[in-house]
């Protein structure tokens, strides 16, 4: 929460003309946007171009920007729109490498990092979970990513993915229930017990 508030403070300072606040926002968000962008495309140069483009836009439209926003959500959403436009542009040139129809340009994929979790059993469980998450439909994976990695709420995710809030909720529930169905009961019980 403190982090969010200082985001808002920075945002207010920035929209009223502070260059320092703008720099702080860039410092805080450049890497995050980069990682976010690479979930959608593997074209690193394009992601960098879009980061640059986004912050230049912010500077230029500073006077017109709303003061009261969820900064992270606002940046992610604007950034995703930039990526989408840029990738559509790129798709015209190389049909092989871009999926034109899909909003998610390239697939989500991730694996649990071994060294962050020390407990052997939990690691096994997380790995099993990762396998199942990787099998979920792309849209569901995207929702989980926005929800858990970026802490966006249903309204925000829905707006970002251009779906309705109930649909968004349903997707999350369905994903969780599907994961639960896939994982061995014993594994879950083990964790329940471990908790």
């Amino acid at each position, binding site marked *: 929460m403190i982090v969010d508030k200082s985001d808002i403070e920075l945002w207010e300072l920035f929209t009223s003309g502070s260059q320092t606040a703008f720099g702080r926002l*860039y410092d805080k968000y450049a890497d995050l946007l980069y990682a976010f962008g690479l979930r959608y495309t593997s074209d690193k140069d394009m992601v960098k171009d879009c980061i640059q483009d986004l912050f230049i836009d912010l500077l230029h439209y500073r006077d017109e920007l709303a003061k009261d926003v969820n900064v992270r959500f606002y940046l992610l959403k604007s950034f995703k729109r930039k990526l989408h436009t840029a990738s559509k542009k790129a798709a015209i040139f190389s049909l092989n490498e871009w999926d034109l129809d899909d909003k998610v340009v390239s697939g989500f994929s991730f694996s649990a990092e071994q060294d962050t979790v020390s407990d052997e059993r939990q690691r096994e469980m997380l790995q099993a*979970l990762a396998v199942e998450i990787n099998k979920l439909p792309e849209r569901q994976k995207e929702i989980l990513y926005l929800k858990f*990695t970026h*802490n966006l709420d249903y309204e925000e995710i829905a707006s970002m993915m251009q779906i309705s809030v109930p649909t968004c909720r349903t997707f999350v529930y369905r994903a969780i229930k599907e994961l639960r169905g896939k994982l061995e009961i014993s594994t879950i019980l083990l964790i329940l017990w471990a908790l």
Partner: protein
Amino acid sequence: MEEEDYGSLQNHLENDPDLTGPERVIADNTRMLFESVPQEKLPEGEKDRIWNRIIGYAQIPKADTRKRLFRLASWYRVAAVVTLISLAGVGYKLLKRPDSDVMKQAASSVSIESTETRLMLADSRTIHLKGENSDVVYQNDLIRIDSSGVEKNVNPAQKDGLNTLVVPYGKRSRITLSDGTKIWLNSGSRLVYPSEFAEGKRAVYLDGQAYFAVAHDTDRPFYVQTDRMDIKVLGTEFDVSSYGDDQKVSAVLAKGSIELLTQKDSFWGGQRSKMVPGTRAVYDGISKRAQIDKVNVDEYISWKDGYLIARHQTLNEVFKKLSRYYKYDFTIQDEEVGMETFSGSLDLHEDIDQMVIGLADATSLKYHKSERRFIFEKKDTPSE
């Protein structure tokens, strides 16, 4: 503030009354998993560079900026590529199969930066191959070089030892292995192979691009191993491109059938996919997916006959290939121009200056040359 509290409560699926106990555990663990996934960061220095450009644009009057937005300095991209090449082999994970590991190490232990094609034998003899295009043939325990009569013996004690053929930028080489398999190596490639294959399996390691015409041998499947993707073959012709500075590994199948093994170093084992002739598989190192599409095979394999065939390829792609082939830098001043597409066939046997004149003509660009660099830009036209 109240709104935020509501948001956070609603955000925590772990406490959601609509979920059962085990489901909440799943939600909790899913969150933990997503939080533990390492987030990629902007490479060292890039963050500052982008920032400097943002601040740079802030000084430009509003009306002019839109045009300049996507014009990134080509210089820094070249720098990035160079860094990637030099980093390749440093931060690589151990693979599960030891032979591929050893071969990979052999490949990364020799530098691609060289003026001559080199053949490094298992017994640590190094043979320098002259000329732009070289030819190496293994036959009856002899190595024939460039059909020029130069012959070397295969060291009988080192028959299963690893040899490395290193083809620098600007050169090409063709090699015929002991089993009769022919491999055309494109510029900037390294191939690791034994003088003689063992029973049961033929395996080579490739870094770069090569066209394979694999001799048929059902008892000994042929494997092409690369950093991120393995290819299993019975007898067939195909092209593999796996440059360290490309995000993507690709295979184009001309004849026969091959099987891809991707995600080599993932936790839960690799993924297999079969390919049919006339298709191209692109494996993306970041999304960790192989996508197979129908393609015009010629476009991808024509380099082995000394042609570059492009169908709606961006100038950036064409120039990337040319700079590997000729070992010249190709720079485009205007980022937008680099995104324009080009179709046509370029004769790579031609002298580079001749080829560039033709290319400039076809693209209506002007260029100037400075040392080993061609700089292309728009012809002066009345401003918009």
